[in-house]
């Protein structure tokens, strides 16, 4: 009885808190100076429908480069500290360990999840997605595969190749901006234009840069998951 009263009190408390939040909330309508500049000139200069993407990739491109680097360093340190055992013996899986239905469902779903991840990072300048989000979705697919099948092995070689190539390509696209455009990571190359506003092929090289960021993030997080799984097996 006391427990039920406690539950009711907790629920009422939640209700009061959220009611206050909901009623007191007032949207900010005034823009600061910097935000005013972005809102006024962003769409014309960059050509992306999603202004956040323009800011993340172009106005603050160095910041994104740094974030990708942080993720890379984190992945390296995790794989450095985990004790890995490189034995390739296959575990015997009984029917109690994993269900056949989950394995089948994962085999159907994982390609679709990968496709959706690619869709998210290619449409980063139009929808509320982007490279980091798309990469995380791809890594979710890898996590599903690992969970469905305990004997699943990722080809680490491919992951490392994808990661290095996309990292180099990201910097290369930035340097191309110096040569053809107005500076490092400038997205509007001379003679290329920004394309028609609101279509997939607009906003210069933002979709391409975001694709590289997405591939790199997906590869790094998959690598972390893979390393964790390997260190689990050795216990």
């Amino acid at each position, binding site marked *: 009885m006391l427990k039920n009263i406690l539950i009711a009190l907790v629920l009422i408390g939640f209700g009061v808190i959220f009611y206050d939040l909901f009623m007191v909330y007032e949207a900010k309508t005034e823009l600061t100076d910097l935000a005013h500049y972005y809102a006024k000139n962003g769409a014309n200069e960059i050509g992306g429908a999603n202004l956040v993407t323009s800011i993340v990739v172009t106005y603050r491109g160095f910041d994104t480069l740094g974030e990708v680097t942080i993720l890379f360093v984190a992945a390296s340190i995790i794989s450095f500290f985990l004790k890995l055992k490189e034995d390739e013996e296959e575990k015997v899986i009984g*029917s109690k360990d994993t*269900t*056949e*239905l989950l394995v*089948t*469902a994962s*085999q*159907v779903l*994982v*390609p*679709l999840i*990968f*496709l*959706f991840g*690619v*869709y998210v990072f*290619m449409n980063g300048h139009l929808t509320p997605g982007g490279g980091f989000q798309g990469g995380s979705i791809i890594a979710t697919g890898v996590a599903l595969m690992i969970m469905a099948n305990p004997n699943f092995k990722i080809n680490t070689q491919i992951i490392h190749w994808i990661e290095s190539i996309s990292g180099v390509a990201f910097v290369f696209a930035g340097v191309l901006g110096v040569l053809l455009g107005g500076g490092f990571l400038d997205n509007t190359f001379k003679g290329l234009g920004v394309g028609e506003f609101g279509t*997939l*092929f607009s906003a210069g090289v933002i979709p391409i840069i975001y694709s590289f960021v997405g591939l790199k993030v997906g590869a790094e997080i998959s690598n972390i998951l893979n390393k964790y799984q390997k260190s689990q097996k050795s216990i």
Partner: protein
Amino acid sequence: MKAKNLIVSFSVLMIAWLLLNWTLDPLIVAIGIGLSLLISVLFCSKCTVFEGIKLGPKAFAYTFVYILVFIRELIKANMDVTKRVLTPGLNIEPGIVKIKTNLKSKMARLILANSITLTPGTFTIHVEGEYFYIHWISTEAVDIEEATQKIANTFENILKELYE
């Protein structure tokens, strides 16, 4: 068999890409073709999910039959659940029974299990070889043959036309 796997996987991915983008712009279609090819070669060169699928006008027609039957059973299941939940008192007789299926294809077994889960009163709790263990909210039959007859036969007959 391998080529068939690739073709089915490729077309599923391509349809999903077109549904997501909802346009027939040639560049987007080209990107979709390349991407679907890449992903299906990466994942489905060894996979066994779509093995035994039948392609052809008859299978196409039976897909619609399956969807119609499934919708009918889904609505029936929800009438059943609503009746059980809203009438006062517990009029349930739960039990776990065993049914036998002859389906071999992985995808067909997944669809069969999902259909059993979403139809009136039954829930797939464990899969072991050719036996499915079913949690039944109002146990009407314990015998394997009789339970199979009552639970799985409608869907199994349709799925046999779609997969072999």
